[in-house]
């Protein structure tokens, strides 16, 4: 195949033909000369020798001829370029419009492709990244899939699987780092010992972890610094190796610095540091962490395939192992399957693997449409210009310029325009991505992100490719025209311009219809995204998000035990409640659309599970008594939590409506008992039913089961203080910080955000806003291009018909008749464009219906309003030239030309 492509290229360049012809020519010359010498009486061999001598070396002659040929080609290219520059410089306004138009189209594509490339295409900076597989575990019956594995399962997978050379796991955690008298909140991966060796990474200084290191209880904690964090926090000081620091109050030793450019294996989050896995187990000397429960799945797992093993083969061997473990540990591993997904296809989350290519494809398609619209505009402009330059082309053709030369010259010009547009487009696209990146960062607050949406070779070649493509498209029509350059006909036609080729006019009208249709598709997409965003923002979430500040804390990080943590929170709530502007406060573990969530297995009293049946897993939050009132979560039945529901009182729970309906259909849930510990209890009594809420993006459409436990009866050290305020919640941040540090000076504050910010964030509506912003930007560009196109054609045709208008008016036509005449013509084009656009949108947006929430892909409101908007603006673009035509003085119009 490559050799065929190479020969194609040679033929394209005409090199083969030239070479062969040259060979034959010299060969025949040798024969002619030999014959001549033989006539003079030389022997054949002597004659041939003499002939070759006279020719002076066949190879030298060939070389000289080749130089001539190549030189000519370069010379004519240089001349075309010079000529193109001169022509463009003569009409800088036109060149600027063309370049800007193309820059918009190419910029939109560069921007979108830059994002797709950064998120989906860029390989992990590790050895042989194509061998890295994400191991996404699923358990049948779990309410929500976290795609994580347990440590004990990982150990068994390692022992029993031969398809992988290494299996590694990590857990991302926010930790507090104290070093050199300064405490920071940082993002860490707690990693298995083989993490770095499996990825094939080398330290910049010091060493990385060794296989097996940090996976046993009681081992000393160790830390590897990420390269960029080392630079940022320690100024690249090589002396940090061996230094002891505190992580959440526990001693840890820095052993080395990771390689430059590596920020962990998460596609979006940038790791500051890496800790040994025993940090995730609490560094405890005893097996007290989650690492020692097979059913507690909290580790993200990856594997490196052995060379020559395919993902499908690895999958089938994995299925054997998971089935074996399910039999061996039915209590924990029943229903577990592990999906082997190539790392690139598991971004940004394994569960989004299906929708992300759809989103990427949709936006690339929208950007492609923008480019197509831009190309149509430019083609239109160049066509008009080609018409104006017919005379020039005709003269050149008459003077003997070959067709090839004329086409080459026209194409050189459009290629030059496209490349200038491409360069401007790349700059524009990168600028837009910087802007989007900044928006992204603000949307997600304090977590460092890796947003390499910038230029790399792939983006560069993509932009270059579409620029060349654009150049070919916009150059094709004028070049075709030039190739038909016929001195006679052209010179004749350009003499009279009042009867332009009807076919050419039809072509331009066709372009306008296509432009309107394309721009309507863009606008309808933008409308659907915008309405989607509006719908989710209007959606009732099951609580009142206005005027709430969330502060996430974890006193365990600085060594507080349970009693101390509880009294800290009690004291903190009292102090904050006393601040001016604060209405009430509550403590909650789970924040809707928040960063942390928990699910528990739920067993029902008096309802033993059938053999092989799995108990359901359900999301929960632990909250203190003022929660329901503070967050304004309506209680439908029973009561809320009270101060009397304390550690010694009987255990109680509040379930949501969905959970009540699912667990006790057609029964009164109040008084029913469930257990989160095991089939034989201890049991918790349901005392209330809360209204369903939107707890996460996945629960946006359909309610999911959810329950609440009193904080006094179920403990976690990490909690979020939710503050309902009477004043803008942002203004409370400083005083709340002071209140916290007045109680616990070293306590890191993981997250301070208003509920609104949290909802707009990464786990919330960010995706919708991003989609709406991108689609709206492209819709606006599309609208502008279409309006410019319509205006251009309308004014061109109005100008061409000036003479006719004059005659009509001289014969007694009213100005309003003229106006109607011009407008009718425009209205026909607009109607055709709008109809085509509606049909195309209807066909296209249904393919992406899953991207829209709360709005149908054929939403009549969006279709109608957007169509009206486009039609009105397009009609206005027709009206302007029509009004000019209407104001003509009939006599002047007749004299025109």
């Amino acid at each position: 195949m490559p050799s065929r492509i190479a020969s194609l290229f040679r033929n394209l360049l005409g090199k083969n033909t030239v070479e062969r012809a040259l060979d034959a020519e010299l060969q025949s010359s040798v024969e002619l000369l030999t014959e001549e010498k033989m006539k003079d009486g030389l022997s054949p061999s002597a004659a041939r020798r003499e002939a070759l001598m006279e020719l002076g070396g066949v190879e030298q002659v060939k070389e000289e001829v080749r130089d001539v040929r190549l030189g000519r080609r370069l010379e004519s290219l240089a001349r075309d370029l010079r000529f193109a520059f001169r022509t463009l410089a003569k009409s800088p306004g036109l060149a600027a419009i063309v370049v800007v138009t193309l820059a918009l189209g190419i910029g939109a594509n560069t921007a979108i492709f830059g994002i797709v490339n950064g998120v989906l295409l860029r390989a992990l900076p590790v050895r042989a990244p194509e061998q890295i597989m994400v191991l996404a575990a699923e358990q049948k019956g779990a309410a929500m899939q976290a795609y994580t594995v347990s440590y004990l399962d990982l150990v068994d997978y390692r022992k029993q699987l031969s398809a992988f050379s290494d299996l590694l796991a990590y857990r991302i955690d926010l930790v507090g780092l104290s070093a050199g008298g300064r405490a920071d909140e940082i993002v860490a991966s707690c990693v298995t010992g083989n993490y770095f060796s499996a990825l094939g990474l080398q330290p910049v200084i010091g060493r990385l972890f060794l296989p097996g290191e940090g996976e046993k209880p009681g081992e000393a904690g160790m830390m590897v610094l990420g390269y960029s964090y080392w630079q940022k926090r320690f100024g690249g000081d090589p002396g940090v190796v061996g230094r002891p620091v505190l992580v959440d109050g526990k001693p840890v030793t820095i052993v080395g610095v990771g390689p430059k450019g590596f920020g962990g294996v998460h596609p979006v989050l940038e790791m500051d540091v890496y800790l040994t896995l025993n940090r995730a187990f609490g560094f405890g000397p005893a097996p007290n962490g989650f690492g020692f429960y097979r059913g507690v799945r909290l580790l993200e797992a990856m594997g490196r395939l052995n060379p020559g093993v395919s993902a499908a083969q690895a999958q089938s061997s994995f299925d054997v192992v998971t089935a074996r473990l399910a039999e061996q540990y039915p209590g924990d591993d029943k229903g577990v399957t592990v999906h082997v997904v190539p790392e690139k296809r598991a971004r940004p989350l394994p569960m989004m693997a299906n929708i992300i290519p759809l989103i990427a494809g949709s936006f690339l398609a929208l950007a492609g449409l923008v480019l197509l619209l831009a190309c149509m505009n430019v083609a239109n402009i160049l066509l008009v210009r080609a018409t104006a330059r017919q005379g020039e082309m005709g003269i050149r053709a008459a003077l003997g310029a070959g067709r090839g030369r004329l086409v080459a010259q026209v194409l050189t010009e459009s290629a030059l325009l496209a490349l200038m547009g491409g360069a401007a487009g790349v700059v524009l696209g990168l600028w837009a991505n910087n802007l989007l990146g900044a928006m992204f960062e603000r949307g997600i607050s304090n977590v460092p992100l890796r947003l390499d949406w910038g230029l790399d070779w792939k983006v560069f070649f993509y932009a270059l490719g579409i620029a060349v493509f654009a150049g070919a498209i916009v150059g094709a029509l004028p070049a075709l025209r030039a190739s038909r350059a016929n001195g006679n006909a052209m010179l004749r036609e350009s003499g009279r311009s009042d009867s332009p080729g009807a076919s050419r006019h039809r072509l331009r009208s066709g372009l306008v219809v296509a432009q309107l249709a394309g721009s309507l598709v863009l606008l309808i997409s933008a409308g659907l995204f915008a309405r989607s965003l509006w719908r989710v923002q209007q959606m009732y979430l099951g609580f009142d998000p206005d005027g709430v500040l969330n502060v996430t804390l974890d006193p365990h990080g600085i060594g507080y035990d349970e009693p101390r943590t509880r009294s800290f929170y009690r004291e903190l709530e009292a102090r904050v409640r006393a601040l001016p502007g604060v209405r009430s406060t509550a403590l909650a573990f789970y924040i809707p659309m928040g960063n942390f969530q928990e699910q528990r297995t739920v067993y029902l009293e008096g309802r033993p599970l059938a053999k092989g049946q799995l108990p359901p897993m359900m999301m929960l939050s632990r909250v203190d008594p003022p929660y329901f009132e503070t967050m304004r979560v309506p209680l439908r039945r029973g009561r809320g939590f009270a101060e009397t529901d304390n550690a010694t009182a009987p255990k109680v729970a509040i379930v949501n409506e969905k959970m009540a309906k699912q667990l006790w259909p057609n029964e009164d849930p109040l008084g029913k008992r469930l257990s989160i510990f095991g089939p034989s209890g201890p049991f918790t009594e349901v005392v209330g039913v809360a209204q369903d809420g939107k707890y996460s993006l996945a629960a946006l459409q359909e309610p999911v089961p959810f329950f609440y436990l009193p904080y006094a009866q179920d403990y976690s050290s990490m909690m979020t203080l939710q503050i309902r305020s009477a004043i803008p919640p942002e203004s409370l941040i400083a005083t709340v910080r002071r209140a916290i540090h007045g109680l616990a000076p070293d306590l890191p504050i993981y997250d301070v955000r208003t509920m609104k910010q949290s909802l707009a964030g990464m786990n919330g509506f960010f995706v919708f806003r991003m989609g709406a912003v991108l689609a709206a930007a492209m819709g606006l560009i599309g609208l502008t291009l279409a309006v410019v196109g319509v205006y251009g054609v309308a004014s061109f045709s109005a100008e061409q018909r000036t003479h006719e208008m004059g005659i009509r008016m001289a014969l007694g036509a009213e100005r309003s008749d003229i106006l109607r005449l011009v407008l009718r013509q425009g209205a026909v084009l607009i109607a055709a464009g709008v109809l085509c656009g509606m049909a195309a949108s209807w066909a296209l947006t249904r393919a992406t219906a899953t991207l829209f929430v709360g709005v149908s892909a054929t939403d009549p409101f969006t279709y109608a309003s957007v169509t009206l908007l486009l039609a009105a603006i397009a009609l206005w673009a027709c009206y302007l030239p029509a009004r000019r035509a209407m104001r003509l003085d009939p006599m002047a119009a007749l004299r025109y030309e």
Partner: protein
Amino acid sequence: MGKTKTDLLRGTLDLLILKALSLEPLHGVGVSRRVAQITQGAFQVSFGSLFPSLHRMEEKGWVEAEWRASENNRRAKFYRLTASGRAQFKVEERDWNRVVRIMTAAVESA
């Protein structure tokens, strides 16, 4: 000014080739022999200069090439002047005559 001499020489060669071809289409060897003939053997054109010149003229569109049978029934590439080649020949002929007139006048003026 070193360039003038080679330009002049190349110009001379081009003019001679154009002249040779203006009489009838010829192949490469034929051009060489015809130039020798019309200059009474004063110019022996080397093939190392002749072929590049012919190809350059072909690129410029002054000559067209065609494969046909030679006088001895051998296949050979024949060059023929095009319309623009003929025009070029006229231009070069006129320029040359002017140069000769001016140079002669200059050299003979005492």
